[in-house]
């Protein structure tokens, strides 16, 4: 198909043809085209369907404000829905498809909704679908749902990469049109660190789309000259294809750079990079967006924004039609006419509602003043328009200009409100701008080229001064001030046909009026009731029109009617870009224990514990299930000896003259008098009296303690201790540093643990008297490696923990296994660890879940009332120590063959499962090889005095209900003889 609408000129490279498809139709465009310009060049009028009424729609604009021309770009996993054809750079092999139709684009069966439109006006959902009651869920809603949305996701993993980055500058310039470029030159010449970003793939803005003279040369040449100068400045960074999408606190801006979207293949590089830009100052040079006029049937393919028709001719060398009429309420429409004619495009007429003399003399063009367009024909492409003066014109393109709206979005992202400017009939930035932000050019209401360039120059120089630099002596480029006079004319009223305001969401002037009639007068109500401006174009071309029609209906002025809040992003940003590289395996960092490689060699199963990977169990050949492995690990450890990597436990080095006094405030139990060479178990409360962590803390010297925390709370405990140190007790001489990663630490447990360790530890009296339960000491291991030895037990057996610097961990585990071989030592994982601690009745995160007090876990005697420690006061509140509180208990199944499940609730034998009958719940369960049955821990109302009772463990969501006996939580070796032995 040849490019019938291609004309001479333009910035496309006609020596570089590019093949692409639309709805599988092969077409050709040129390098420098957008998908939209190429479609127009190929005469493709109908490109999509509207959201609600499935009306045929064509390309409306030439920028990111496009409401109609949304396509599904690429295919397969790369399919990208709702992509604006007007901003897609054409690349070889591009494939695109139209959206939101059932059947073909030309024959969309859903267009029946258009016939039903009288019944589907504003807010119709809320008034209907209610009868009969059952129908809403089963019939109406599924139907509404199925017709929702525009394009579709592939439902496959996004195959592209995304990245993020951080940039710093003195001055960020958003927009590289005339004012932005001028500003960049001024600031760059003054030596400021400048970042200038533009969403387009070329610099220049309107200077590419309109013919102007700047400082005596053509606008396009001036752009090139400026670009060359900026490229040569090391202090200036140019970001094209980069949308500054949001303004955030303290000079931070979000920007999205499209790195490979314009290429057929990303080459395994990130598709897009999300920049966080830290700026001292920022200039918004975002230009202005043209808007339409609400006249009957103003939504047909071929009805476009006038400035865009001009842009397609001048930048892309494409005529938007063969017979073009222009309908404008302002002078820019006339400039469009002049420029089109100069390019040999046939302009039939300029229609202007103003009762003045024509705004320009254009030979061969009917200049119809004081008239408007009041109807149009052509279902899938415009072919005729009717004017209020009765004239009928045969045209295939109607270029409409309702005036220009300054792009104030970035100036309002921090909830600032723009103010109305009658002269330009648009909102301009208000007084309450984001800190450090200035605006120049059309986005500041300076609508003429001359004014835009002047303000860019002036504003940049002012900023340069604020930055403490001296402005360069260069003058602002010269350009003329073209006319921009406008009549505030929004709506061709008094006709019964629908006049569209929001093209994508199908909001018409009727909907706005109905919304007003029903009392939804506030702009926010209007927006929410009619969905005006809530489509993918965020109302860039429709919001002001909607306001104007609402103002008309309420007899208020537009400023009285107000605007809705502008929110980021300026134009939609891929969720993948915000996600960046934190995906899949790299969502969070992975922490490995010092014995990880060794455990991996043993075929260990690993489990995520926070960011750690911990060995869960060590399968051996012959194990049928994980239970076999765990049972073996437990039994061997209890009978002989086992070893477990416990390096993940938080370790904090606490040093200082006041270290003991400090710990005495941190722990609820006494710590002031722990002897050197001894370890003590400590209980930590939050200030609200709830237990949140526990662990052992060893005193290695008068002024040196080593604290262990749970793996999960290591960071939190450290943070809280720093708070106590700096904010509560600033004069205590105490110093903290995390040593979690410094040490490889192994628990060696079981009757033979002493024998194994004797072979590892250098010259220490390991006898029970020489190194008793809860002893600790600096040692050397394996002939001289510095280490630490603790005699502590989580398993309830005779047990030790030995630590060496992490780099020796791999070697040490191998030595321990070798030393333990004669005792058939077994490595054990977190599951076996769990079994042994449950048998022993030690609490962990399952019990200390942030809701339980020392009273609940029967450790109230560990909250000293003789001292003031964190949380002690509030732990004694009435409800928290009431008799009916739940208390920690052990449970055993009555039937040895029954199994238990965590999360089951306790019920009396004959009670129904109701909230009122709920007596508590099970927190931890396991199969105990020792007791040869399932056991568990749990919380039960008055549980401490109910040992021996038989009740039910009811687990409704798992469908089980078993009888359990309540026992003490200390099930294994309650006297603790073994660990002391």
């Amino acid at each position, binding site marked *: 198909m040849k490019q019938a609408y291609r004309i001479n000129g333009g910035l496309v490279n006609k020596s570089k043809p590019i093949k692409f498809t639309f709805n599988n139709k092969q077409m050709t465009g040129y390098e420098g085209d957008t998908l939209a310009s190429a479609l127009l060049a190929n005469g493709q009028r109908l490109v999509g369907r509207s959201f609600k009424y499935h009306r045929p729609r064509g390309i409306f604009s030439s920028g990111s404000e496009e409401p109609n021309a949304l396509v599904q770009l690429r295919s397969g996993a790369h399919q990208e829905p709702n992509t604006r054809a007007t901003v897609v750079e054409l690349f070889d092999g591009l494939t695109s498809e139209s959206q939101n139709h059932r059947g073909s684009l030309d024959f969309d069966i859903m267009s029946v909704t258009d016939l039903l439109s009288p019944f589907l006006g504003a807010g119709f959902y809320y008034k209907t679908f209610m009868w009969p009651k059952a129908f809403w869920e089963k019939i109406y*809603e599924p139907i509404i749902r199925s017709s929702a*949305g525009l394009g579709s996701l592939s439902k496959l993993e996004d195959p592209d990469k995304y990245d993020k980055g951080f940039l710093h500058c003195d001055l960020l310039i958003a927009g590289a049109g005339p004012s932005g470029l001028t500003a960049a030159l001024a600031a760059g010449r003054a030596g400021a660190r400048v970042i200038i970003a533009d969403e387009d793939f070329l610099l220049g803005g309107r200077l590419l789309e309109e013919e102007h003279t700047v400082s005596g040369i053509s606008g396009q040449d001036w752009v090139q000259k400026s670009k060359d100068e900026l490229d040569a400045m090391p202090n200036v960074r140019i970001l094209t294809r980069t949308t500054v999408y949001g303004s955030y606190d303290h000079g931070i801006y979000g920007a999205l750079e499209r790195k490979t979207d314009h290429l057929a293949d990303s080459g395994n590089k990130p598709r897009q990079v999300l920049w966080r830009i830290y700026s001292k100052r920022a200039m918004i040079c975002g230009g202005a967006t043209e808007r339409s006029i609400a006249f009957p049937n103003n939504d047909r393919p071929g009805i476009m924004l006038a400035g865009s028709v001009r842009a397609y001719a001048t930048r892309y060398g494409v005529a938007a039609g063969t017979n073009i009429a222009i309908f404008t309420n302002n002078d820019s429409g006339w400039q469009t006419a002049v420029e089109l004619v100069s390019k040999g495009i046939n302009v039939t007429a300029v229609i202007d509602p103003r009762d003045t003399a024509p705004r320009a003399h254009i030979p061969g063009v009917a200049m119809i003043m004081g008239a408007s367009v009041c109807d149009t024909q052509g279902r899938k492409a415009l072919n005729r328009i009717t004017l209020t003066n009765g004239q009928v014109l045969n045209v295939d393109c109607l270029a409409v200009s309702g005036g220009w709206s300054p792009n104030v979005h970035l100036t309002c992202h921090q909830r600032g409100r723009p103010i109305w400017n009658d002269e330009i009939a648009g909102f301009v930035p208000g007084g309450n701008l984001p800190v450090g932000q200035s605006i120049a050019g059309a986005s500041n209401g300076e609508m003429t080229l001359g004014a835009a360039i002047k303000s860019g120059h002036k504003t940049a120089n002012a900023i340069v001064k604020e930055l403490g630099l001296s402005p360069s002596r260069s003058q602002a480029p010269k350009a003329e001030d073209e006319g921009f006079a406008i009549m505030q004319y929004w709506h061709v009223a008094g006709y019964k046909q629908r006049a569209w305001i929001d093209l994508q969401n199908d909001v018409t002037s009727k909907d706005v009026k109905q919304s007003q009639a029903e*009392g939804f007068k506030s702009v926010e109500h209007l927006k929410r009731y009619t969905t005006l401006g809530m489509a993918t174009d965020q109302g860039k071309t429709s919001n002001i029109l909607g306001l104007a029609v609402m103002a008309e209906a309420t007899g208020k002025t537009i400023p009285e009617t107000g605007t809705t809040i502008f929110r980021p992003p300026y134009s939609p940003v891929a969720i993948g870009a915000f*996600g960046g590289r934190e995906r899949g395996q790299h*969502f969070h960092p992975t922490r490995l224990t010092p014995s990880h490689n060794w455990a991996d060699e043993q075929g260990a199963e690993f489990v995520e514990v926070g960011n750690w990977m911990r060995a869960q169990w060590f399968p051996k050949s012959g194990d049928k299930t994980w239970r076999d492995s765990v049972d073996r690990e437990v039994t061997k450890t209890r009978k002989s000896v086992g070893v477990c990597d416990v390096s993940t436990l938080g370790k904090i080095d606490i040093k200082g003259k006041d270290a003991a006094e400090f710990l005495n405030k941190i722990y609820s139990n006494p710590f002031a008098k722990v002897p050197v060479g001894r370890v003590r178990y400590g209980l930590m409360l939050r200030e609200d009296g709830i237990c949140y962590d526990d662990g052992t803390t060893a005193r290695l010297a008068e002024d040196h303690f080593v604290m262990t925390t749970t793996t999960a709370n290591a960071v939190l405990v450290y943070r809280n201790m720093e708070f106590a140190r700096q904010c509560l007790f600033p004069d205590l001489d105490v110093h903290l540093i995390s040593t979690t990663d410094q040490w490889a630490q192994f628990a060696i447990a079981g009757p033979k643990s002493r024998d194994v360790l004797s072979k590892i530890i250098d010259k220490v009296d390991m006898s029970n008297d020489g190194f008793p339960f809860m002893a600790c000491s600096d040692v050397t291991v394996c002939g001289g490696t510095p280490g630490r030895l603790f005699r502590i037990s989580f398993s309830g057996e005779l047990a030790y923990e030995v630590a060496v610097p992490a780099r020796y961990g791999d070697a040490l585990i191998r030595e321990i296994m070798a030393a333990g071989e004669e005792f058939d030592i077994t490595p054990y994982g977190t599951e076996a660890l769990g079994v042994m601690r449950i048998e022993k009745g030690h609490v962990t995160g399952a019990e200390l879940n942030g809701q339980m007090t020392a009273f609940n876990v029967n450790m109230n005697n560990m909250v000293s009332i003789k001292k003031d420690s964190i949380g002690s006061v509030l732990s004694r509140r009435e409800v928290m120590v009431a008799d009916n509180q739940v208390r920690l208990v052990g449970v055993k199944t009555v039937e040895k063959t029954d199994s238990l499940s965590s999360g089951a*609730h306790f019920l009396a034998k004959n009670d129904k499962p109701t909230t009122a009958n709920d007596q508590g719940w099970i*927190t931890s369960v396991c199969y105990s090889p020792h007791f040869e049955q399932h056991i568990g821990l749990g919380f039960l109302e008055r549980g401490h005095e109910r040992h021996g009772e038989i009740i039910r463990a009811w687990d409704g969501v798992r469908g089980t209900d078993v009888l359990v006996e309540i026992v003490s939580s200390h099930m294994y070796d309650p006297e603790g003889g073994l660990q002391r032995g």
Partner: protein
Amino acid sequence: MRYSAFGILKQGLTGNKGWKPVWREPEPKKSYDYIIVGGGGHGLATAHYLAKVYGGKNIAVLEKGWIGSGNIGRNTTIVRSNYGLEGNQPFYEMSLKLWEGLEQDLNYNAMMSQRGILNLAHSDGQRDAYAKRGNAMLMSGADAELLDRAAIQKMCPFLNFDNERFPIKAGLLQRRAGTARHDAVAWGYARSADLHGVDIIQNCEVTGFQMKNGKCLGVQTSKGMIKAKKTAVCVAGASSRVMEKAGMRLPIESHVLQAFVSEGLKPTIPGVITYGAGHFYVSQSDKGGLVFGGDLDGYNSYAQRGNLPVVEDVCSGGMSIMPMIGRARLLRMWGGVMDMSMDGSPFIDKTGIEGLYFNGGWCYGGFKATPASGYCYAHLLATDTSHENASQMRLDRFIRGNMIDEKGVGAQPNLH
């Protein structure tokens, strides 16, 4: 006017010219029996139930801006009753039951859509915590199911099952949960309250309370003094600012919570899904937008806008559990001011001041609570006793040590 199929047909055929205002715009009277301060979802629901269920007469709702301008129109529209604690669960289940009958009760379609909520668990501990919660839900008469990995894969094949940093172990499913059209809830309650004679007064800011020897006699407003036998404050994020005028300090901080919506997409996601290993939850609206969110920004704020770190954190969570959404575009981000209480649970209670009542501390769970909150608040106003399902939502619970801390993170609002 009552909405009916016939009415809509008639309007459609006569050019939709006959629609009447959904609510009146009365001038405030000199005095009322009940003044409800705050024309958000909870305030309007309170007015509706007070008038319709408890036969309250002479009621006014005072709204500083336009009704529904607060969090009712700025949330992710999730409706559920999957709580674990006795102080909460029966209340939220009551709320869910009211949601289920809302269209008929209001003759207004709030588009309640019961497509279920699935909370994903990524560790045995998390799974068991969900089991405990699910059982508590069943005990309160709610529905709950514990799904295993296979069942989840069947239901949501698009989740990340191959390359997960934190594998999906299980999920807690409540089928009756879902979403509703947030604005319509406010409008439906307002319309019904108005039909029951409630004066809804917009653009009427309360500037102070009329106090006389420890008694509240009414409110000063931008439209003058208005007397009331009972004054009921219900202003969510503005709770501290308003109650300060009555000399009260609250166990509440105001924080910003951001939420996000994508461009419209053809139906992709069945119900509400929450990621247990990252800060991300998502559903798809009737219009096709992915509506999603995550955690608070973490700092106190009244600004109704947030910052980038949370946006990126939420989206990376989404990408890691649902890698198909990468090419969907984020269309709008916004922030709401959350009245974060010190234990993450709300208050519906009398104050120490006679004639002054308080409803607040909804954190980011206020939307789903709207019907029950209105109902229980109306009950309190009408009877001066707490509704049985809100009996623990008291202001003195911290003095007594009766926290309702679902998350177990203690007295730090930005962690709830």
